[in-house]
């Protein structure tokens, strides 16, 4: 049974793809940018690409579901919200208490990085559940036309 949607952890494949997308965007952006900037850029590209396909409301619903799932896995996302137009708000706001009293969660930077990965992975995971691997990869490809994706598991390369 495919219970990926009910699992409390992100599907490893999607987590890996999210990592690679964030890494791709981090290189595309300026090195001085904060971790959350890469997450925002990945999210925005997905929002633009998926928004055309499912509509703003459709995307907002998906993103809200993904965020709800992600929050249970990454407490660093506690302040993040999805706006009515589907945009992401509150990324980069860390709960100071968590950083202070639960050092195992890492620094604010670590939390941002982990939270970004989990959120993107959850969003991709929902697509995987609804559309399957092939279509999900095609949608991701259309959002990153400059990148070459061989499959969900391989590294993302820049097209020559």
């Amino acid at each position, binding site marked *: 049974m495919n219970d990926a949607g009910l699992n409390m952890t992100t599907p490893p494949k999607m987590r890996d793809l999210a990592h690679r997308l964030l890494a791709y965007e981090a290189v595309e952006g300026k090195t001085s940018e904060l971790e959350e900037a890469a997450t925002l850029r990945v999210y925005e590209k997905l929002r633009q690409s998926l*928004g*055309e*396909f*499912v509509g703003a409301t459709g995307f907002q619903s998906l993103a809200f579901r993904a965020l709800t799932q992600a929050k249970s896995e990454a407490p660093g996302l506690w302040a993040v919200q999805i706006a009515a137009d589907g945009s992401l708000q509150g990324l980069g706001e860390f709960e100071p208490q968590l950083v202070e009293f639960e050092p195992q969660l890492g620094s604010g930077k670590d939390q941002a990085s982990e939270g970004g990965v989990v959120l993107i992975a959850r969003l991709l995971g929902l697509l995987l559940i*609804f*559309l399957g691997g092939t279509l999900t990869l*095609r949608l991701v490809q259309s959002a990153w036309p400059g990148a070459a994706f061989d499959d969900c598991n391989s590294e993302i390369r820049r097209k020559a």
Partner: protein
Amino acid sequence: MNTEDRVAINKLPTGVPGLDEIVGGGLPEFSFNIIAGAPGSGKTTLAHQFVFANATPERPALYFTVLGESSIKMLRYQQQYTFFDSAKLPNSIRFINLSQVVLEKDLGAVLEQITKEIEKSNPAVVVVDSFRTMVRKPQSDLDLQSFIQRLALFLASWQATTFLIGEYAEDELRDNPIFTVADGLFWLRQTPERNSIVRKLQIIKLRGQDSVPGLHTFRITDAGVQAFSRTFGLTGHLKDPPSHRRLCFGIPELDKMLGGGVREGDSVLVAGSSGTGKSVLATQFIAEGIRKGEPGIVAVFEERPQAYAERATTLGLDLETPQKDGKLKILYLRPLDLSVDETMHSILDAVQRIGAKRLVIDSLAGFEMALSPGFRADFRESLYRMIFALTGIGVTILSTVEVDESFTEFPFSTYSISFLTDDIIRLRYVSIDGQLRKIMVVIKMRGGNHAKDIREYEITDKGVVILGKRLSDYQGLISGIPVRSNRPDSTEVPSQDTGIKSKT
């Protein structure tokens, strides 16, 4: 106007098996079409098939979704169909959601958004699904009419073939500006008939194209929509010239009674009550054909192909080997909601695949039972179309039909279809000398001579075997309760219409 001066309208493949034939060879390029019907009637699937069949990276398809089914769920379900090619997304097929514009703005803004996307992509195909949800918002008739007109003109100018998909009820067909503007109007229906669902498709209009009128049945399978033309896909097929060849049963006495066998391309009816050997005779007819190098098809409805072949083995007839060799196809057709057109499609497909010359339909009663109740009412008419189409391509058909045994009548069929058949062989029980014996008589042979003899036969381990002489010493044989006439027996030579006199 000179033919050469006329504009040639390209015909695009519909991507729906059987539909090209119905629309007259393909869908006119740049046409503005509406697919209408109730929810669940297959509108979206049909549009998807067209899109997947025609979209290319150079001339993509734009699929606008509005307020109906969510795009994600639509793709979730549509990708289950075999025609769905993920590789076409998103370069050849783009899905664009317009729900926000529709909800927040007016039809002018919707048109503007569609226009913008079309100018950007230069699509060959445009679909708006569901168009109906867009025009349900309160607006004046003038707005709507103007919107439709402008959309149709714009899409035609951009050389796009367009489908608007909408949920419409039949009574909305009249006085609707959308239908007036449309070049093509495809109406899909699904109606419950007793416990079956019957799907029918009608091309209400299609400008510039000679489409096949009437209601055509269709089915939705894992391959998508499949349409079954009322003309069985044989439009334009020239009827084969009549053949003078005779096809034997391999039962010498019966073949003699038939003047050498049935004429190639004839429709033969073998009628009799239960247990009289109709299926045995049919099996012998097919087996003899295979023995002579004539591939055959048996359409069975009352038993499975394996059982049919095993029963043939008990008669010393091997139907397994020819099946393996591609000389015989036993079709088992019993879904209980078939249409004749669909059955015909299966048969024609098999005929073309193995080059069949002989076809057995065993039996018409089973065939009728396999049909959806709604189609049973048209069974006679459907049989007429089917027999005409199959014999037209030179296939010789032998159908079996069970008739109720009566001692006051001698019916040929329960369907009043004897006029559809060229030849009729009647089997029946008679009570003779305290035994229930079997007799056979050739009732009619259109365009050929046949014996008038009433012959007794038995079913043995070699199949139907006609016993020695014609039964000339009985009167009232066809009543089933003959009376001995005390006249001497006849010779073994069957009498013919052509003056061969029987010994009386």
